[in-house]
């Protein structure tokens, strides 16, 4: 077999190929295979010496979770916390692991080369690459989780790559890939959001307490005359459709038909606004609730409750 006239000396393409393979080798020791679900294989990222982060949607068994580590060795893990709103689960492992290096997102932008890395059930490392195709501001998942950046790579991401890292060209983690945040495409949970959620889970005993009012509501447009008469600037509020029994809203005297205008210091124009305030209001805190009843303004103090576990 002869050489096809190709210049065999290293060129930019060969250098790129070596760099990419090196980036995969760098992160591979911190990528694990996660088996906790009869049908959903997932990967995971070694977050610190005794913790792995992965996707919540691939966790079924909470105590008997099997991992395959980067060195091919098996390990047992237990669930240390989970947050379905951001599709993140935190696993605890007794043995000492090799934490993944993390990237600084300040230097990341659309067009940067990124790699998606996973581990399969045979323990083999798998990788694909692409570019950052979207890198935008904060967004909220369909389950109400706050994510600080919208990050989407164009790599081929197999279902078993869910929970695995998206890394930059040097092998540092920029986020966790998941098919659980959008039905149409895989997205990446940025490393900054993982840091925040992990800290919340560790502080909250494995779950993130979410504020609860106990009302069903819907956005309503405020009539022009009413806005002028009451000096209301906002164009809409949310009307209370139902009040749960023994809920914080019932205790505060909220009734069906009340039109909520503000919660705390935040203007409420639709139900998303309420969720946003509750997301940052720990249970037990008091908030001012301003609303219209029969065309006149009212104000009550409401003690934020905690959403029942079943609602998670």
């Amino acid at each position: 077999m002869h050489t096809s006239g190709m210049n065999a000396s290293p060129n930019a393409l060969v250098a790129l190929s070596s760099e990419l393979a090196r980036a995969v080798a760098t992160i591979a020791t911190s990528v694990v295979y996660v088996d906790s679900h009869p049908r959903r294989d997932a990967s995971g990222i070694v977050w610190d010496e005794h913790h792995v982060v992965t996707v919540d949607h691939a966790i079924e068994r909470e105590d008997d979770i099997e991992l395959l580590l980067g060195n091919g060795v098996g390990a047992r893990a237990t669930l240390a916390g989970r947050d379905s709103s951001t599709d993140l689960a935190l696993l605890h492992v007794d043995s000492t692991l090799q934490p993944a290096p993390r990237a600084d997102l300040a230097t990341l932008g659309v067009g940067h080369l990124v790699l998606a890395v996973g581990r399969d059930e045979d323990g083999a490392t798998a990788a694909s690459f692409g570019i950052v195709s979207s890198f935008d501001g904060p967004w909220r998942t369909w389950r109400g989780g706050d994510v600080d950046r919208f990050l989407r790579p164009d790599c081929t991401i197999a279902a078993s790559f869910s929970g695995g890292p998206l890394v930059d060209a040097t092998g540092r983690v920029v986020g966790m890939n998941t098919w659980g945040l959008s039905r149409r495409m895989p997205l990446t949970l940025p490393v900054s959001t993982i840091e925040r959620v992990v800290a919340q889970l560790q502080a909250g005993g494995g779950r993130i307490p979410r504020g609860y009012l106990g009302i069903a509501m819907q956005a309503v447009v405020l009539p022009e005359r009413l806005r002028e008469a009451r000096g209301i600037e906002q164009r809409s509020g949310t009307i209370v459709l139902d009040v749960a029994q023994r809920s914080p809203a019932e205790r505060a005297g909220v009734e069906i038909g009340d039109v909520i205008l503000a919660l705390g210091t935040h203007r409420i124009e639709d139900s998303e606004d309420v969720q946003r305030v509750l997301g940052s209001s720990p249970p037990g805190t008091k908030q001012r609730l301003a609303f219209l009843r029969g065309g006149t303004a009212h104000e009550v103090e409401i003690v934020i409750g905690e959403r029942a576990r079943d609602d998670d």
Partner: protein
Amino acid sequence: MTTELGNDLAALARDVRASTVAVHDTRGRGSGSGVIWDARGIIITNAHVVRGREAAVELADGRRFRAALVGRDENMDLAALRTEGVGDALPAADVRDSASLAPGEFVVAVGNPHGVPGAVASGLVHRCNARWVISDVRLAPGNSGGPLVDASGRIVGINSMIARGLALSVPSDAVVAFLRALRTGSRAA
């Protein structure tokens, strides 16, 4: 840097195209791609590309040759053809030991997808074992039998099929073993 990359990729594509052929099955309508494995005219393609005892082979420069089937292995999806009357001057591919491939390496597929001659697609090695080199290269029908090469243009696999969006290529080491078996007569068709 991106200009350099683009130039290198174009040079690589040019060289790999020279040793990639279109294979037309003379019996049916099937066609695919193949690789000039050595200068004396051995062409490697997929078993599913060549159904009959002979095929027509078209080089990148437009030359056409008749080729006779030398051997076939349906399990490995490999077939070897010998072109007739070409002497020993074909632009053969440079071959790399596929066992040395690492996940994350850059690879390029060249072939004739949808009848487009010399089309190029690129991606990364996902993983590799003795049976398959798996990559995220976007193959299309017609890529079958064509080369998967590394960043230096050396053949690491023969593109065979697409499974769950990933490209499956027969490792070059398996092609070497296949040809060795043919020579020793253990698997002649």
